[in-house]
């Protein structure tokens, strides 16, 4: 024993010294990052993808004499977007998840100092931010003739490090302040995405109302974009260090650090075992009374089973704060913001359509796609991961009733989102009432069914809910950019154009635009586009019938093993 102790001590001390622990913790966070495709897609993939897509679409336009291209003004926004996604969002969601899964609790019982755990996460975020920015600038240099003036390279790197630290502090503060992971995901995205729009990330400042621009300057993101923009501006000289902008960023960072420190020192018992408040509305009391006797005395009809599943699917979707944000609040927000920053929703487009009505239509389609293609299959996949589906498979509920219930539930959420969008657009832009509103509702329903069935079919090929989000979001967002959803009137290379018409999103948004056109032609139903949606629905339905199972393929072909032996 003595030899063991003698060997162990010196070795152990070099491993458990603070810098050693920090290094290992950082490495651990980076490994965990590499194994979480959804985080990589959101923090690195998305900014790069937006940059490449937007540059491919518009980047070669020469905006002024001397050959300076639009990409020069696109890169700063996307670089800032990368930084904020890699630090603020990544840390907020990561910490909230670690807390929700009990990782933080276990770590706090270990003899590692708390600051090492926090700093490990921050260092990983810093690496992620540097990689993300380097990829955006590198892609610009390699493919789009982006000019990075040598005068400002140092300023870019220093700004990047300071900004990363500050956004990290803010992300941690947010995660510490909010009670649950779902809420943290919803709030962090709810902050970043609207801010991105008013912080010159998508180059819209020229047409933005003054008050919106002023709000943008209150937050650190716009200052970061400004520093990068000036650093990359070929007409300016100087080192690129902008102390006034940096000071605003640093102030926000200090505030975030202060909040984090206070929250940490309060060391509240964050166990989520707080009981839900008992609501005692009359309807509840009535239903509880009904619980006293059997709810039926004969076999339930298929219709009863399906309608029960529809209600359940609705509850699943509405109780997920993050899902509600992405699928409902986000499109509604964009309907208000995009036309506003583009000169107003009452502006008329070439075909006489008003900008507000156009975006109301495409955002309803986008909301339907997020609900039906991303969130609903995500919920089913989570149920599959947890064994909920396996248990359901042991009940008399037919698989068809469950799936139809989920699809119809998603369609219901998509329709409600559509109604809210119409309400917001009507209030904000007072457009003429489009004659084809009924046709638009039909298009929305057909599209939502199509997205839902395709999403479920995709789910059967993906082994976990986490990986599924990566796949669905990773396909939906790029498609949204080439499907006249966010950007309209762009001309694409023929291949990209063909791709966009092949997948169901562009036919859906095109059918919606047809239905909402100011001069309605016929019923307003673009039958060609609807046929594409129907074909996808049938094909995906066949795949679903062939491949759906209550358990993932992995666990079906494996001997049952006790996870906690």
């Amino acid at each position, binding site marked *: 024993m003595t030899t063991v102790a003698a060997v162990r001590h010196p070795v152990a001390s070099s491993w458990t010294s603070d810098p050693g622990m920090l290094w290992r913790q950082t490495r651990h966070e980076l490994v965990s990052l590499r194994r979480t495709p959804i985080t990589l897609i959101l923090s690195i993939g998305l900014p790069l993808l937006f940059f490449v897509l937007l540059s491919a679409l518009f980047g070669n336009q020469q905006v002024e004499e001397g050959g300076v291209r639009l990409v020069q003004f696109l890169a700063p926004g996307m670089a800032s977007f990368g930084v904020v996604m890699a630090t603020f969002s990544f840390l907020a969601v990561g910490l909230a998840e670690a807390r929700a899964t009990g990782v933080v609790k276990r770590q706090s019982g270990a003899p590692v100092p708390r600051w090492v755990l926090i700093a490990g996460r921050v260092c990983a975020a810093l690496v992620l931010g540097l990689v993300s920015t380097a990829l955006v600038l590198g892609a610009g240099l390699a493919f789009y003739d982006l000019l990075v003036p040598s005068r400002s390279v140092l300023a870019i790197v220093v700004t990047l490090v300071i900004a990363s630290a500050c956004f990290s502090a803010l992300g941690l503060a947010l995660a510490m302040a909010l009670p649950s992971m779902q809420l943290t995901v919803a709030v962090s995205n709810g902050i970043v995405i609207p801010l991105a729009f008013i912080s010159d990330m998508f180059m819209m400042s020229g047409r933005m109302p003054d008050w919106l621009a002023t709000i943008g300057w209150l937050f650190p993101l716009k200052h970061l974009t400004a520093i990068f923009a000036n650093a990359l501006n070929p007409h300016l000289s100087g080192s690129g260090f902008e102390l006034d902008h940096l000071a605003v960023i640093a102030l926000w960072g200090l505030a975030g650090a202060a909040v984090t420190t206070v929250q940490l020192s309060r060391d509240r018992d964050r166990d989520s075992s707080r009981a839900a408040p008992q609501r005692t509305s009359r309807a509840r009391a009535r239903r509880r009374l009904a619980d006293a006797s059997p709810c039926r005395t004969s076999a339930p009809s298929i219709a009863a089973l399906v309608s029960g599943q529809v209600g359940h699917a609705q509850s699943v979707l509405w109780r997920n704060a993050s899902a509600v944000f992405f699928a409902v609040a986000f499109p509604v927000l964009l309907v208000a913001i995009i036309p506003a920053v583009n000169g107003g929703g009452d502006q008329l487009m070439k075909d006489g359509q008003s900008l507000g009505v156009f975006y109301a239509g495409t955002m309803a389609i986008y909301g339907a796609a997020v609900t039906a293609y991303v969130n609903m299959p995500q919920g089913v996949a989570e149920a599959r991961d947890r064994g909920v589906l*396996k248990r359901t498979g042991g009940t008399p509920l037919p698989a068809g009733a469950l799936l139809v219930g989920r699809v119809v539930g998603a369609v219901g959420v998509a329709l409600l989102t559509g109604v809210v969008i119409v309400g917001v657009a009507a209030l904000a832009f007072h457009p003429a009432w489009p004659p084809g509103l009924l046709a638009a509702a039909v298009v929305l329903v057909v599209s939502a069914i199509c997205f839902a069935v395709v999403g479920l079919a995709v789910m059967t090929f993906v082994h976990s809910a986490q990986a599924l989000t990566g796949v669905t979001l990773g396909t939906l967002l790029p498609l949204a950019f080439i499907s006249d959803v966010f950007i309209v009137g762009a001309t694409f290379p023929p291949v990209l154009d063909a791709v966009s018409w092949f997948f169901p999103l562009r036919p859906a948004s095109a059918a919606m635009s047809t239905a909402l056109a100011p001069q309605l032609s016929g019923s307003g139903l673009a039958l060609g586009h609807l046929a594409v949606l129907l074909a996808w629905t049938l094909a995906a339905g066949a795949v679903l019938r062939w491949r759906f199972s209550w358990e993932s393929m992995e666990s079906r072909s494996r001997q049952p093993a006790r996870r906690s032996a």
Partner: protein
Amino acid sequence: MAAIEVTGLRKVYGGVTAVDGLDLSVGEGEVVALLGPNGAGKTTTVEILEGYRTRDAGTVSVLGHDPQTGGRALRERLGIVLQEAGFEDNFTPRELIRLHAGYYPHPKPVAEVITLTGLDDKADARVRTLSGGQRRRLDLALGIVGDPDLLFLDEPTTGFDPSARRRAWDLVQGLRNLGATILLTTHYLDEAEHLADRVVVIDHGRVVAQGTPEELAATAGAATVIAFRMPSGLDGADLPVLGLDRRIAGSVVEVRTETPTVDVATIANWAIARGVELDDLTLARPRLEDVYLDLVGEQALGETEPDTAAPTSTSTRAR
């Protein structure tokens, strides 16, 4: 008619034979416990009976149906409590029990199920706020809400506190009194002894013994056990020749014997002659645990014991 009839069941996972020619019959209204070490094939067998897995060979009949093709008609009469399955934890137990009640033709009243499983206090709290034992009770609640004719319980009381366990036992006995057939797997031998009419011991995918606990004791040839604490200063070499064999664990001596009267007299005389007192002297009928360990061998127990090679692992880590 038997509720469950299995002959020659085989299941192979990529070259590993999990179930190897298993025969099993469970009569209507009978409560049968499957025992066996980890990896013996219990869960695979039960999941084949539940219809979750396909078999490679053999015949299986569950309530007169083949579970692979039985479909909804069979499922309406089954209750299944899986060994490990999660919940949609944004919902409350009441909501989930209600949801499941809606699947069956003759469900029990939701309120009754909540009370039976002791979930009254937590019925309207989100599932994510439930403790491990409370979740397991919800598992049980979802298994019985359809008022099943045949109930599968895969390790139903793992993680329960002692009083919850008693209540679960009472619940299972209540179901049995109403005529339900129950097939349970368990690691707790007292649970099997307490609940089951019949115990089936499985090892390496085969039935190695079955019968009532008393019959098992007889067939396995286990004898009465004399146990006592070794007086200090003495060791095994000092003891007289006793019984069939003896085990010494720490200071506790256990002697199996078929002639308890003679052997008790021998050891008592030995102790009196030396002027020592035998602490904790007991004479006991063999427990199911002894029978079980005889049948499956003690290596099964050794696997689950805490790592006894701690010094070795410490030095490995230090390197």
